[in-house]
């Protein structure tokens, strides 16, 4: 069974969130922050996290359904933490700062909006499987 270290977890989450590899400093920062966060109390939430880390393809759907149904879950908390850390890295900050959007970029927003709905539906089904 794939049980990544906190730094491995950071790399999986960063790839998912912004599609980029991160350096050791960034991974270590996450590891330290995740230590502050703890591993969560709720058994079901921990199962969801473990499943998402084992099957990286499921991360999007499980994130989407957790956002709706389990916003305080450990998966959401860890993803938000990673997102905040990436945001506070100068090499990635532009991905989080407002910028003039081209026509293509505006069109892509519609795609993201559609994708999140599809993910939430898939995530709903996955939750049943994990339970």
């Amino acid at each position, binding site marked *: 069974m794939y049980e990544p270290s906190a730094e491995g977890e950071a790399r999986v989450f960063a790839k*998912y*969130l*912004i599609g980029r590899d991160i350096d050791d*400093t960034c991974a270590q*920062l996450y590891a*330290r*922050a995740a230590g*502050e*966060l703890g591993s969560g109390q709720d058994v079901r939430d921990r199962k969801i996290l473990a499943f998402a880390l084992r099957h990286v393809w499921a991360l*999007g*759907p499980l*994130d*989407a359904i957790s*956002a*709706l149904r389990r*916003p305080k879950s450990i998966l*959401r908390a860890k*993803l*938000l*933490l990673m*997102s*905040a*850390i990436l*945001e*506070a*890295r*100068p090499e990635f*900050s*532009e*991905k*989080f*700062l*407002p*910028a*003039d*959007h081209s026509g293509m*970029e*505006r069109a*892509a*927003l519609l795609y*993201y*909006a559609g*994708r*999140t709905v599809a*993910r*939430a539906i898939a995530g709903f089904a996955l939750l049943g499987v994990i339970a």
Partner: protein
Amino acid sequence: MIDSDVIVVGSGATGSMAAQTIIEGGGSVLMLDVGRTDRHYAGLLPEQDYLEIRRTDPEQHRYLLGESFESVLASSSSTGAQLTPPRRHVVADVDRFLPISSPNFFPMESLALGGLGSAWGLGCCVFSGAELKAARLPVAGMKAAYDVVAARIGISGERDDAQPYTFSYLDGIQPSIPLDPTAAVVYKNYARHRNRMHGDGFYMGRPALALLTESRDGRNATQLRDMDFYSDAERAAWRPWITIETLRKHERFQYAGDRFVTRFEEREGEVSVVTLAMGDLEERTYRCRRLILASGTLGTARIVLRSQRRPAASLPLLCNPFAYIPCLVPARAGRSMPERNTGLAQLELFHDPGQRNDDVAMASIYSYRSLMLFRLLRETPIDLQDARPLMRALMSGLLIMAVQYPESRSAGKYLRLEPDAATPTRDRLHVNYELTRDENARVGWREKLYLRAMRRLGAWPLRRLYPGHGSSIHYAGTLPFSDMEKPYTLSPDGRVWGTNKIFVADGSGFAYLPAKGLTLSLMANAHRVAAGVLKTTA
């Protein structure tokens, strides 16, 4: 032996103004204060613009997220969650020394040097004559006091439709900060629909801020670095510690920090003030001829309740009902933002249906500039991979409207002190805060009008967020001014009825709480009370 003519408890907006008045009037002051400061973050903050920092500083996570990532890990609904790490010292030690139990009231209090004023949003408003009367404050005395305080702190603003509600008749107002492009869209629409807006009782304009746009008194004009929520390095923003720092150079002023005042006792022409050391709780008593309590409305209530050995009392409480309404200006979504500006309020929208300036609601409108995206992502009910590009695009079109409603006394809003052996003071404040059905209905009615007004101005309300009662951080009315000698009230000059030498300079006496930011009025009242105390010592 007397330690000082006058003891002032608290170094917040009111304590600092009261002390300055006494010192300038020739008196001497010992300030007793807890005085928590930020010893860590200020040293980490580079003197750069927010955007420059974001693009270049590899250490930014330390002060943007916090050394223990406290900004991300704190629940968004916890007290002080909106404070950035360099401001979190404002709530240090509060849970331990100012414990509260309440099913429905979640205030923010402070034991910092400068109190809540170390984090305040600088919004200044003058109460109208009608509002002052309803608060039982003397109109002429307060008008003169507003002038004094405005000259001390420095205010910027603009002569526009909001002026009667913001700086009103005050002189010496510096030019306003520049208008952010997202707020500018809304302001332009307001100009276009001005008559209809006025017909509906709405008046919009630039805020009056205790922020210098022109340098003076050793303080710099704002450089628009957008670091207002993190740093005071420029000293453009007036914060109480700036006044305290100046007072500390004066030989008639002494500052005793790390002292937590528990109670007072008046005996044979003297006042004893009992304090605890914050660390080992060692008790020490100070003596003075006059005591001025400026420990914040809730802090003062605790001290007075503990000191007045009367039957357990419930005191009334005023706090402006409050809501956040994020709004989207679609025309500005997916756009870059100017490099320089400020995250402080951009516009104020007042609702004055009777057009008499006596029952006014107030909305402060902020652009979402120098706060990080993760705060928005946390509230977004979609997956974070998609939320990031979506919210990033929306961010530049986002306005956050913070609406406050005027507040009168009613039966469901009260506090009392209850025994609790586990706390350093062996008690805990119990607060209940419930609006009556009529009050709720009136707030709901006004909220709907605000939503409609914003739509007309081209800003779509996205949702309504109610952070809970107490979150307006505007508290008053626990010891209301009274012309009659009654327990747990203040005489018109701020004296605690039943005492000769104990005065209150914070918001405890206000018998009505207008929705307009109260702090300028708190400071004016503190000056007025202190000026009266000076006369009695002379």
